[in-house]
């Protein structure tokens, strides 16, 4: 398995090549950009085969010593175990499909958005994959942090890919700054771990945690809380969730790869990796689930009142990651990672399909200007039906059913009834907003010129990724079982099997009822919804949901405005005034001295003699 480093090397080489030869032809750029990820995916496949042939033993590759300062030693070590292999598969596999799709999407995109470099897009994308792989493979918290910051950077660069639009630049800023807040927490968490353990090696920390950290003490809680802060920032969970919807300003494949399938789930990975720490901090442990639940409900309500197809999907992503956090909160780590993987399949599918819809409709993103598209672009419709079904966890045939129900079941079985109930309510919401979107976009009559003249996309680069992801989003995807038994603890369940079946039936019913309500509300002429929205209270509620519970306005009042006020206050910096004293003195000295340089020999001689006199006098007097 010594070729493990190749997984990260290919995307890095791709990124470097694309960065150096910026003006290369589009075809070559696509070949390099997609090919590097393809090679990575093949390497991952080989690694997986060997890994399973090897009894799933973890493999550590020491590449070089990164930092070595006295006791502080950080190796550039990769670790391949069940958890990182699962993520590796998602990143390179789904990543490859998205890259392939992107080669088509960006080419279409170039027709409207001239002047944006094709190579730049793939350069950032490859760099992102590299960083994400380092994040997942890093056997050291600092190395993981390197990847963590790398993906944050690439996310920023790609959200702001269309940098000529000011709103896009602001969205990139917002994403970068808010995730940075989380990153600072994570960094502090790492410092705290270093203080307690004297190492940042993840495996050492996991092994020694029960001895080093006392359960439930303030230090332990704060350490876990800081790690959680990093995780919620990256994964767009409450209270650092506001950036994700705006991040949709980037190209759609970016939303699929970074803001749905991989980067935003890094927080889930982090908590699963360091779950030992969380288990020693009961309060924070509980908080993980609660935050997940709150996020999934808030995001679910928000998704109900969105008009932009990508924002609907963004809020659904937030809510699905909320489920993963909920799972982490109830110690169902396996279920969380399983849902992470399944979610990557169907959410990538939905995002790519939405990209396809957007291109078909000539860059129209408002769902109320679409309508009736199911006959014009049947493939996208199929994608949305399958992906939407998986998202809503419709029973038996979808992959989402297996992953989400496991979470709900385990939360109930582990005695977190409130979380279970909330999760069930969330499932209900999910079902409604998903099919609301599908019915509005694909059913009814075309609502605008753009949707009337929608054209079906062509090409293998467009079809293949969608078809593969359709298959993976059905129950077929659920057959892929992440090999987590050696990494994460199994959840022990004492409740009976019959109870599980009945709960599954219950959640299936909830999903189907949601679907039915969506059909009743949004198929046909939508008179009831219209009436509701046009009433005073309804409009207010709609506005409230549309702005995602007005978090942006609250944060604006609470943080942005005061910060700007402080900045304005400091424009008249009194410290700067103090610092101005020194130059003033120097200028004064300069004037005084310059007066003596009058160019007259007699005054020079006089000064000389005067100076000598003073010196001699000083030496005489004692």
């Amino acid at each position, binding site marked *: 398995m010594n070729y493990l480093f190749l997984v990260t090397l290919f995307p890095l080489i791709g990124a470097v090549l694309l960065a150096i030869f910026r003006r290369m032809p589009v075809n070559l750029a696509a070949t390099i950009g997609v090919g590097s990820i393809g090679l990575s995916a093949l390497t991952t496949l080989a690694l997986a085969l060997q890994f399973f042939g090897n009894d799933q033993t973890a493999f550590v590759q020491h590449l070089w010593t990164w930092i070595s300062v006295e006791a502080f030693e950080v190796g550039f070590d990769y670790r391949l175990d069940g958890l990182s292999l699962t993520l590796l598969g998602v990143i390179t596999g789904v990543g490859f499909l998205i890259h392939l799709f992107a080669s088509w999407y960006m080419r279409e995109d170039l027709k409207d958005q001239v002047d944006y470099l094709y190579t730049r897009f793939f350069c950032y994308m490859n760099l992102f994959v590299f960083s994400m792989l380092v994040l997942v493979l890093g056997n050291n918290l600092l190395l993981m942090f390197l990847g963590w910051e790398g993906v944050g950077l690439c996310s920023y660069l790609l959200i702001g890919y269309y940098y000529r639009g000011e709103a896009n630049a602001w969205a990139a800023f917002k994403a970068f700054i808010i995730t940075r807040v989380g990153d600072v927490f994570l960094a502090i968490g790492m410092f705290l771990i270093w203080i307690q353990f004297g190492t940042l090696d993840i495996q050492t920390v996991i092994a020694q945690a029960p001895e080093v950290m006392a359960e439930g003490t303030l230090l332990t809680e704060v350490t876990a809380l800081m790690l959680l802060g990093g995780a919620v920032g990256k994964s767009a969970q409450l209270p650092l969730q506001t950036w994700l919807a705006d991040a949709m300003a980037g190209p759609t494949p970016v939303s699929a790869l970074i803001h749905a399938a991989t980067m935003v789930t890094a927080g889930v990975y982090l908590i699963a990796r360091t779950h030992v720490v969380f288990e020693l901090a009961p309060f924070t442990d509980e908080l993980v689930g609660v935050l997940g639940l709150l996020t999934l409900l808030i995001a679910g309500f928000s998704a109900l009142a969105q008009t932009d197809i990508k924002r609907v999907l963004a809020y659904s992503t937030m809510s699905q990651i909320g489920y993963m956090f909920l799972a982490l909160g109830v110690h169902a780590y396996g279920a969380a990672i399983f849902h992470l993987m399944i979610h990557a399949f169907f959410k990538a599918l939905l995002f790519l399909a939405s990209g396809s819809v957007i291109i078909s409709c000539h860059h129209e993103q408002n769902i109320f200007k679409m309508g009736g598209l199911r006959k014009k672009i049947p493939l996208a419709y199929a994608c949305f039906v399958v992906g939407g079904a998986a998202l809503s966890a419709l029973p038996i045939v979808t992959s989402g059913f297996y992953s989400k129900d496991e979470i709900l079941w385990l939360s109930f079985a582990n005695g977190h009834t409130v979380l279970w109930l909330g999760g069930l309510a969330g499932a209900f919401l999910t079902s409604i907003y998903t099919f609301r979107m599908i019915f509005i976009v694909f059913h009814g009559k075309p609502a605008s010129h753009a949707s009337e003249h929608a054209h079906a996309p062509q090409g293998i680069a467009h079809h293949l990724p969608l078809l593969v992801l359709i298959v993976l989003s059905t129950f077929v995807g659920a057959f892929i079982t992440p090999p987590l038994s050696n990494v994460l603890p199994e959840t022990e369940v004492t409740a009976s099997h019959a109870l599980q079946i009945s709960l599954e039936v219950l959640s299936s019913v909830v999903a189907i009822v949601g679907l039915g309500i969506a059909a009743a509300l949004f198929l046909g002429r939508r008179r009831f919804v219209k009436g509701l929205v046009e009433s005073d209270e309804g409009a207010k509620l709609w506005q409230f949901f549309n702005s995602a519970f007005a978090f942006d306005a609250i944060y604006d009042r609470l943080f942005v405005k005061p910060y700007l006020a402080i900045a304005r206050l400091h424009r008249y910096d009194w410290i700067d005034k103090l610092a101005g004293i020194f130059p003033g003195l120097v200028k004064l000295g300069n004037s005084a001295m310059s007066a003596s*340089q009058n160019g007259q020999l007699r005054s020079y001689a006089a000064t*000389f003699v005067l100076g000598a006199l003073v010196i001699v006098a000083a*030496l005489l007097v*004692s």
Partner: protein
Amino acid sequence: MNLTLTHLFALLPLIIVGITVVVVMLSVACRRNHFLNATLSGCGLILALLSVFWVQCSDHGSQLPTLVSPMVAVDSYSLFYIGLILVAALACIVFAYAYFDRLKVHREEFYLLLLCSTLGAMVLVSAVHMASLFIGLELMSVPLYGMAAYIFKRQQSLEAGIKYLVLSAVASSFLLFGMALLFAAYGELGFAELGLKLVSVDYLDTWTIIGVGMMVIGLAFKLSVAPFHMWTSDVYEGAPAPVSAFLATVSKVAVFAVLVRFFILAPTFSVKLHTVIAVLAVLSMLTGNLLALRSHNIKRLLGYSSIAHLGYLLTAVVVLRSGVSDGAGELSESGQLVLEATGVYLVGYVLTSLGTFGVVALATHADSANRDTSELRGLAQRRPVLAVCMAFMLLSLAGIPLTAGFIGKFYVLALTVNGELWWLAASVIVGSAIGLYYYLRTIVELFLPTDDATVTAANGRGQALGALVVVIAAALTLWIGIFPEPIITMVNSALPVGL
């Protein structure tokens, strides 16, 4: 006194320069030819430089240090500084050739003066006796008056020569008086002999201290240490640029070397005296930097900056009090550090001064009276190589890392911190902070665009060679800045006689 072959061999560098003076004089008498005489002088200096290596290498530790007479010692210390002086003089000849080539004056005698002055400097660094100190100093200074006033048709130049002459005479009288006082007290003129007497007495009487103090005043003038600095910028500005370069390098190095040697061989442990020197150092740093702050004439600015730099260097002499611990000629560890610091600082200072004055000599018009920084404005457009070198040299003068100037300044700071001279350390820092302003301002000036059509690229013979010297100086500055080890080793092996 009998001179053996060994003695003559040790004196080889001085002899060669002396012969060169005669040869150039005869050559000028036969035929005026600028190129020929400049080349002859240059060759003489190169031969002398080679002989320095020869003497140093053939020594095998047996013959050196050689006390040629009670007056002159050829040891590794004097050889090191003779080498430095020869390199500086050589560079000055190259600059002078390019500079005077454009002038319609009798140019050839200049090299004669320069060689004489160089010979004086070489005697000075080898001096271990009051008499040779004075002879060396005057041999160095007297030709300099002529050199400063060489373009006598220009009033500024003439004025510079006369100012230097008059004030120099005052300084020499102080020096002589100081020597006389010491002779009156101890009846000795040799440094080492004087040192033995000084160490043997428990208590230095007032006249001894005043005698040394007056010598310090005399030498401080040559080093342009405040408050004896007034002449510096006027002379630097008025004199031809190569002469300013010579003044800033050769004369400063020679005087400082002999000052350090004097304080090592004839140590005075008077707290008062060293306090006075410390005050002079602080005054120089502040005065030099403050004066340079708003000076827009590049030669004046460099003059002021040299005042400040000599102030930094003077801290080495202050620290020497504790460095010469066990009597005359014995150096403690901190004394060793003083020698190291002095050598490294002087090498860096000489290189950067040569570079900056070289650029001024090459890039400005010899016959223009007004040599403002505005004349260097836009240098980057006309002479990009010179501009980059100049910028780098200015950074070195400012003490930015990766330059020789930084290493030197680091040594000075280390000295003050080791000696726990906090006031000196503070003023080094304050002085450097002020210095940064005008050095950087000058760099900005170099790269500003200019629309002055009258400023044209200077072309003439010797420009290319001059530029090469500047580039070499810049390269060496960078090299020492990155990798100072060889220079430090070289300086450390250069110990004065009696150690």
